[in-house]
């Protein structure tokens, strides 16, 4: 079981390494969306400082959603997914390994680059840690919830837009807690409560989402 998980993790990371462009695209999307907001709302520094946590979080959320269809699409297209469904290793474990690989490639870079965007938005440096921590806890939850939608919409026409409709409403609590933690920390109240709730969401999602995703994959590839 562990061997299967490790094998999948290695394989997916290797595949991502061979196609670095995909990783860069999601990251660039994150940066571009975050850079568009000042053009929309104006360059007033105080306003930008106020909206920064929300903007960075919404950008991360959209970027993470955009990379979701890739999660199962290739494996579905070349038949690997069917082998995974038929194989002896529990599907939930395989899915968990795939998600970990996906998050390392699509989620972790967002966490790493977020402080840079925070700098652009002139957030006070003490908040960088809270922002990075909230993204560190929050982006895996986004991947876990989003993967349910990705598995359900596998191989459907108009999959991308449909995926957004399914997944974005479910992202709301993560967005509230993630952006809220930075805002609370900015107000001098400390964002620990929100961070803890994000951690709780991560634990619950990590425990239940892989099985829901596995069930969705079985439905989609009947």
């Amino acid at each position, binding site marked *: 079981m562990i061997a299967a998980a490790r094998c999948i993790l290695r394989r997916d990371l290797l595949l991502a390494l061979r196609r670095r462009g995909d990783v860069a695209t999601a990251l660039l999307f994150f940066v571009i969306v975050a850079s568009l907001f000042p053009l929309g709302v104006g360059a007033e520094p105080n306003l930008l400082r106020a909206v920064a946590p929300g903007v960075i979080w919404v950008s991360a959320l959209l970027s993470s959603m955009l990379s979701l269809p890739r999660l199962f699409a290739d494996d579905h297209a070349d038949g690997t997914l069917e082998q995974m469904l038929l194989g002896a290793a529990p599907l939930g474990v395989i899915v968990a390994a795939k998600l970990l690989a996906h998050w390392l490639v699509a989620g972790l870079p967002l966490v790493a680059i977020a402080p840079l965007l925070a700098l652009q938005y002139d957030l006070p440096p003490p908040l960088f840690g809270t922002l990075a921590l909230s993204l560190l806890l929050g982006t895996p939850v986004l991947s876990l919830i989003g993967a349910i939608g990705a598995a359900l919409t596998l191989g459907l026409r108009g999959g991308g837009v*449909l995926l957004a409709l399914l997944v974005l409403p*479910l992202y709301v609590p993560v967005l509230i807690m993630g952006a809220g933690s930075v805002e609370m920390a900015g107000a001098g109240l400390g964002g620990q409560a929100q961070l803890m709730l994000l951690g709780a969401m991560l634990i619950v999602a990590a425990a239940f989402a892989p099985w829901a995703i596995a069930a969705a994959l079985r439905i989609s590839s009947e």
Partner: protein
Amino acid sequence: MRWFWYASPQTFFPLAGTIARWCGIAAALLAAVGLYIGFFVAPTDAQQGEAYRIIFIHVPAAWMSMLIYVVMASWAALGLALNTRLSGMMASALAPTGALFTFIALWTGALWGRPTWGTYWVWGDARLMSELILLFLYFGFMALRASIDDPRRADRAAALLAIVGVVNIPIIYYSVQWWNTLHQGASVSLTAAPKMAATMLTGMLVMALAFWMYSIAAAMLRVRSIIRERA
């Protein structure tokens, strides 16, 4: 088990027709009574004047919008667990009615908000936000169903989505509520609920009952056409 007698679409079809007829009649009668109480019997509100009378539509619609999602998810779960065909049909028959009531609740809420709060929409209110997200969840459910051609796969996929949604609804509600207390910006007081006259409560309950009956009748009619469609 006689319960499963009606689990077959074929045997359920005539029963659905009977239920739809009686529930439809009951809905019409109850709505007539409820609206009469609402418009003519219930006293004018001291603070809000006549504007408050939209409550007789607004509150029952909001109740139904949430209830129908839970009922829908229960049918969906039943369908996944027992693999009965009718359960998926019931879930998809309920979704448009649920979405309709969610929309009515939002719409009447906006119309009610204008004279009382001075604005159609308040971003800071947890109930508005969660109702809006509920509407999106209904749309997601219907969109997922609509984009899958194979009806059995559509049933099962939508069922899983409904279950995920129903688990998330409380989390969404409480997180939105917390977000609301964080953004203590809105100056309107939404908690001031003046003591309600007994006739107002009666009118609201009768209207809620009418909406129940309407929902059952509409779902039954819709499930009949789904059965015909797939036969």
